[in-house]
């Protein structure tokens, strides 16, 4: 099964919406690759620079609750995908965004608040990284000479979508 992981980008706010992830004016692009420069362009957070090194290095995003609320635009998962961010870990997700992630064979992982808090404790370290094992339903975060592992819940359907590489391939063989 596909392994997810790498450097982590911490976005310390709830309700980060799809307009902040990819503004509507870029929805006129008709290839996923063309979205690449606009990742998180309209997100205003203290210390966050959408064009900065931390953003370009990120492979995993950690955030708070109701991540991806708003529009149904799959451009939001796609702009992550083309920037090699293939997993988002948050307290909760908006339904459409979460399903779009799994439908694309990516991961939207929910953890309870105390575990998200524990992940945010790593935010100060320059070398923070995470690995995720969807099959084993566990993730490991490391940084500043420390490391911790957490287990997570994921629906069997969403796991199957990641395994199949996404919903189109899954549905095409079954329906």
């Amino acid at each position, binding site marked *: 099964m596909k392994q997810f992981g790498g450097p982590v980008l911490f976005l310390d706010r709830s309700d980060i919406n799809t307009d902040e992830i990819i503004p509507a004016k870029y929805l006129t692009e008709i290839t996923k690759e063309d979205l690449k420069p606009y990742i998180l362009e309209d997100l205003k957070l203290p210390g966050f620079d959408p064009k900065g090194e931390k953003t370009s290095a990120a492979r995993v995003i950690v955030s708070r609750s109701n991540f991806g609320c708003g529009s149904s635009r799959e451009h939001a998962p796609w702009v992550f995908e083309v920037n090699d961010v293939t997993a988002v870990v948050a307290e909760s997700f908006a339904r459409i965004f979460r*399903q779009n992630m799994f439908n694309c064979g990516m991961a939207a992982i929910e953890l309870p608040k105390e575990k998200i808090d524990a992940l945010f404790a790593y935010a100060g370290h320059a070398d923070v990284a995470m690995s995720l094992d969807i099959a084993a339903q566990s993730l490991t975060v490391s940084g500043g000479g420390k490391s911790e592992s957490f287990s997570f819940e994921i629906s069997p359907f969403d796991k199957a979508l990641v395994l199949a590489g996404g919903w*189109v391939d899954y549905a095409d063989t079954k329906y």
Partner: protein
Amino acid sequence: MGKTTAEKIFASHLVDEPFPGTKVLKLDVVMCHEITTPIAIADLMARGKDRVFDTSRIKAVVDHVTPSKDTKTATQAKMLRDWARRHNIKDFFDIGANGVCHALFPEKGYIRPGYTVIMGDSHTCTHGAFGAFAAGIGTTDLEVGILKGVCAFREPKTIRFNLNGTLPKGVYAKDVILYLIGQVGVNGATDRVMEFRGPVVDAMTMESRMTLSNMAIEAGGTSGICMPDMVTVEYLWPFIQNDYASKEAALADFAQWRSDDDAEYDKIIDFDLSNLEPTVTFGYKPDQVKPISEIAGTPVDQVYLGSCTNGRLEDLRIAARILKGRKIDTSVRAILSPATPKIYQEALHEGLIDIFMEAGFCVTNPTCGACLGMSNGVLAEGEVCASTTNRNFMGRMGKGGMVHLMSPATSAATAIEGKIADPRKYL
């Protein structure tokens, strides 16, 4: 144990349950627009699967940017147009016949109680006003919907909102839904169906119910469902009169989709709306709402009246009644975008368009326009818009712009004063 509307629809449309709690449903209608569909089309072509499951169950419209504003948007429209022609999709609406999807498709009579509906647009929940299960989905779900006529959902849990009392004068469906979102929060109904019940909903027109259901997604809701009744029958009658011997027969048939009295809910919340005030958002989230008494006087640069939330004839009539014989303030500019050509035409015949234009409104063609900052009416940095749309995210209507969501009545009063104003004094 009885069932909710959503549970009844899920049971009747079940194709597969690949895992406990995941239901794959047969789709009655798959709707498409030119922003989220072209990539689905391109991907299906790349996979050698340029097919559609049923030409009669697919409806398509160019609505987000129309007329096209540049080469890219023209290409998106062309991709949808060429695809519709290639597959003989007759219910395709192009410029001259096109309107905002969630206003146009109900107006054409495409929705029935008990239907399953998906579209690559988050406000697809609007169609739940007819007692249907209608959900916004992404492009991959849309692609599978187009190809196979199915979509997967988690088992639906329903929150029942009992809307009791009588709405006071000057208070409308938009105020109700803004208030409800304020009460439950922007993720208060995530993974839930919002069921709107009670005397306030019973007294609403279909237009008002669509406004209510339209914003279910702003509380995180999968769908916003109203119970089908005689109001639903009357609205759909032109489209169903050959299917039923009488309106009473249609009503009896539709009743099968009403939630049972002993249905089990995830939660039941009671509201008395008899003292509700006109309600307006103040921040960058739809749950940040204030009664008009606390926000009146806030200056705005632009007023926008339109969108899938509030661009219907009823909305135009309400606003026109306030604007009649008055002028918009010189400090503000105002835009009206009737949601469909039919609404535009009826507004013309009723003299509403004259009222808007004499008041100083710019009237555009039916389009999603400024709602999501893609088309005509975008704000400049630092500008503020009083809007009848459904989202007030930071920069939504243009980078650096701010939006206050409100009813058509409040937007009309605001246009007159150039600052957020109480509509009740003009009624």
